[in-house]
């Protein structure tokens, strides 16, 4: 079985400071992989290298066996890789429903059918499903900018699933979300994973959230993987504790 996502020997440095030093790992179909590590350990840089936002100095990224290293984000997305961002990234002037349709439209038909075809690019029922699934139905006509922070986070996550991606990378989905909303979000993500088998890679600082959500964890420190395994094991790993609390 080949891995859905294959990361090999990624290296990236900024102005002489090595942010990521030779990171390799695989992500398998249906997994929820968490990537954790203290501040400055290189998680975001690694993420951006995988997603084409940054060009790695070395190493390759493969999706379904296809080399996608340094592919532009829009191309990567059309190959079935979605992502969310650490900071809020919805389109405030579009309605909730339009945000969802936008998130899927570039995967439907050709550019011409998108011009001459249906307004919703045939994504109406898909959007409906997401609205219901993420419990945003009553807000569908609101401008996304008028939603509360937590609701926007839900919408942001929902948008990642509109394109039918098989691999979704979530960058700090829990950041700034209050406790009740957090439970909601986790439960929704688990449900999607269960029902559709979508694979997740999650960067997250909220350990409680990440320990409960993920099936497997990778721990980064100073740009390297220092531990890997089930959440319960990782939590007990002295190397991990040291990385977090210092020596």
């Amino acid at each position, binding site marked *: 079985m080949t891995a859905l996502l294959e990361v090999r020997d990624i290296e990236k440095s900024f102005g002489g400071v090595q942010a990521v030093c030779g990171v390799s790992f695989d992500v398998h179909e249906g997994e929820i992989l968490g990537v954790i590590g203290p501040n400055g350990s290189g998680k975001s840089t690694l993420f951006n290298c995988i997603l084409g936002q940054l060009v790695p100095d070395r190493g390759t990224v493969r999706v379904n066996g296809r080399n996608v290293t340094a592919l532009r984000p829009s191309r990567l997305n059309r190959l079935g890789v979605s992502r969310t961002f650490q900071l809020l990234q919805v389109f405030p002037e579009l309605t909730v429903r339009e945000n969802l349709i936008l998130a899927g439209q570039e995967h439907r038909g050709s550019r011409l059918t998108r011009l001459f075809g249906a307004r919703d690019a045939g994504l109406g029922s898909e959007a409906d499903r997401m609205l219901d699934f993420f419990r945003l139905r009553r807000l569908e006509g609101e401008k996304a900018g008028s939603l509360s922070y937590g609701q926007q986070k839900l919408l942001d996550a929902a948008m990642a699933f509109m394109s039918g991606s098989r691999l979704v990378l979530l960058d700090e989905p829990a950041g*700034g979300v209050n406790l009740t909303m957090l439970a909601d979000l986790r439960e929704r993500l688990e449900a999607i994973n269960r029902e559709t088998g979508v694979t997740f890679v999650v960067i997250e*600082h909220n350990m409680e959230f*990440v320990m409960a959500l993920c099936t497997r964890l990778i721990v980064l420190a100073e740009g390297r993987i220092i531990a890997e395994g089930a959440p319960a094991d990782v939590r007990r790993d002295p190397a991990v504790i040291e990385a*977090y*609390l210092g020596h």
Partner: protein
Amino acid sequence: MAPDAILTLDSVVAGYGKMTILNGVSAAIHRGAITTVIGPNGAGKSTLFKTVFGLLGVRTGRVTFNGADTTSFEPRRMLDAGVCYVPQGRNLFPELSVRHNLELGGVALSDTSRLAGRMEEMMARFPMLREKANAQASTLSGGQQKLLEVARGLLLEPKLMLIDEPSIGLSPLMVQEVFSILKDLRSAGVSILMIEQNARQALAISDYGLVLEQGQTRIEDTAQNILADPRIAQLFLGGGLAPAA
């Protein structure tokens, strides 16, 4: 409230836009001591500093420094009151010389005639600054830059220094040097409130610790007790600490 507190926070709420980061923080920071703030990312540590220093508005609650209510103070008034702030990351003016970067720490000095003397003292204390006085700040190493930032903060003879993640990006040797400088400052009577990722190392040189989670104070205790507290690992690696009921 501790009678020797230099800074106290009373149910402070603050945040950015729609996001609330501090959900009613209360704490008392001891005079003449080093206090380290620890907590997982997103707990609101840096926000706490910005709020205390007046860069971010206090929504509700009260901040008291040295006995005076400073809740609505602007940074300039905080400086005048005797607080300096060394933020995270690189905060020098890259195109100015080391000397001029240092000098800018004295902008708020009420008596400008003292500036030259103060700068002289700083250069005596940190000889590196004198050696490199005319170099562009951007040519300094990471550790040297941090030293310069600390020296710049000290120019005003603050009573309290807020220092955010001083060790980040520094070599272990340099971290030791920075920490020893902080200890020296404490001996000189400066109170220090520090955020530090490297919790164990920081607590080891600290007198007190303050544990934040979800924008609230979870533990306020001596550094020793916190170091020994088994809940700390749990705090960082999941499980969280229930708010004291």
